[in-house]
């Protein structure tokens, strides 16, 4: 076929790209996926919305928090990179930021900064979640929840 030669070259180009792509990805543009939820916990009422938050309510009550109602205000899966911080809008007007600090032996560390709150460095793991107080809002407290993205 006439196109044999050029197709061969094309093929090498494509193969080359195929090799380079994953390598490139692993260098600079590292991104990790983190699920971030903003939950409003309050002592008014007993509403748990959505029902999956029932577990969160149990855990908090076990720690002797007096919250009776848990409502999810937002949920998103962020691709957190090292280059630039990802922002999460908090309903009280502030922004929480997440930034990848690095990946060591396959474990990523993400820095979480919430205005007027301590800054956390969180090591990602396949189980569990980190609940951080994120400020006051409409008769309750905001809680930022970091967890592995749901599969």
């Amino acid at each position, binding site marked *: *076929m006439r*196109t044999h030669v050029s*197709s061969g070259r*094309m*093929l090498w180009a*494509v*193969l080359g*790209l*195929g*090799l380079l*792509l*994953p390598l490139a990805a692993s260098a600079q543009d*590292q*991104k*990790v*996926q983190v699920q971030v939820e903003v939950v409003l916990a309050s002592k008014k009422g007993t509403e748990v919305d959505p029902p999956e938050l029932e*577990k969160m309510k149990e*855990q*908090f*009550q*076990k*720690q*002797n*928090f*007096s*919250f009776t109602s848990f409502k999810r205000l937002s949920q998103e899966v962020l691709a957190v990179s090292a280059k630039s911080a990802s922002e999460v809008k908090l309903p009280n007007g502030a922004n929480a930021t997440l930034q*990848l600090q690095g*990946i060591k*032996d*396959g*474990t*990523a*560390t993400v820095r979480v900064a919430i205005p*007027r*709150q*301590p*800054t*956390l*460095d*969180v*090591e*990602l*793991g*396949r*189980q*569990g*979640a*980190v*609940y*951080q*107080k994120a400020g006051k809002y409409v008769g309750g*407290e905001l809680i930022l929840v*970091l*967890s*592995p*993205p749901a599969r």
Partner: protein
Amino acid sequence: MAGNPACERFVPMLSPYVDGELSSAERVNVERHLAACRDCTGRAADLRAESGLLRVGLDMAVDDVDFKDFTQRVMARVTPDKPPFMERLRLAVSEMFLYQRTAMISSLATAAVLVLVGLPLLMSDRAPVGYAAERMTVKSIQPYRNAEVAPVVMETDNGGTIIWLVDEDSDVLPPSGVESGERQDKTGGGQPDGNGRSVPARPVPDAPRPSGGSL
């Protein structure tokens, strides 16, 4: 029935009259006419009946519908799920298809890319990038500026971590539980040292838990 010529003037006003949209002067005029005109009184009654019917009819149609999932469906349209990974890959590859005209190139290229790019990504698909560790853990805490209160770190029994900041006006944790500066040695970690540097947080299992408060 031959229309009373005066009615011609009033009939168009009956609609806004029934809606309560006439000025008080106009309303008085209309009511004066209605008192004297049976036809127009009937017309006004017809308008009201029609209004009511419309509402009843629509009410019934709306009641027939279940709005339980309505908001969910709206949100689903607002934030469509990203197509699953393999789908995205296939799309990316099929876009390459378009640029390579020759079928031979396309198929070889596809195979090559799928193998070289797909495989490593497929393997890492089992545990997403960065999630080699088993648990989400808080490695360190940097207190907010010169905060006098230290964050409290609690471990839940399903492997989660709660980071809480007790401030004065917060009555979430009862005051008999964690007292700010005084408990530095007992909470075992997550404390700012003198220079405000962050210290690795190790929730100490035997630290006194905030005791149950007003639940």
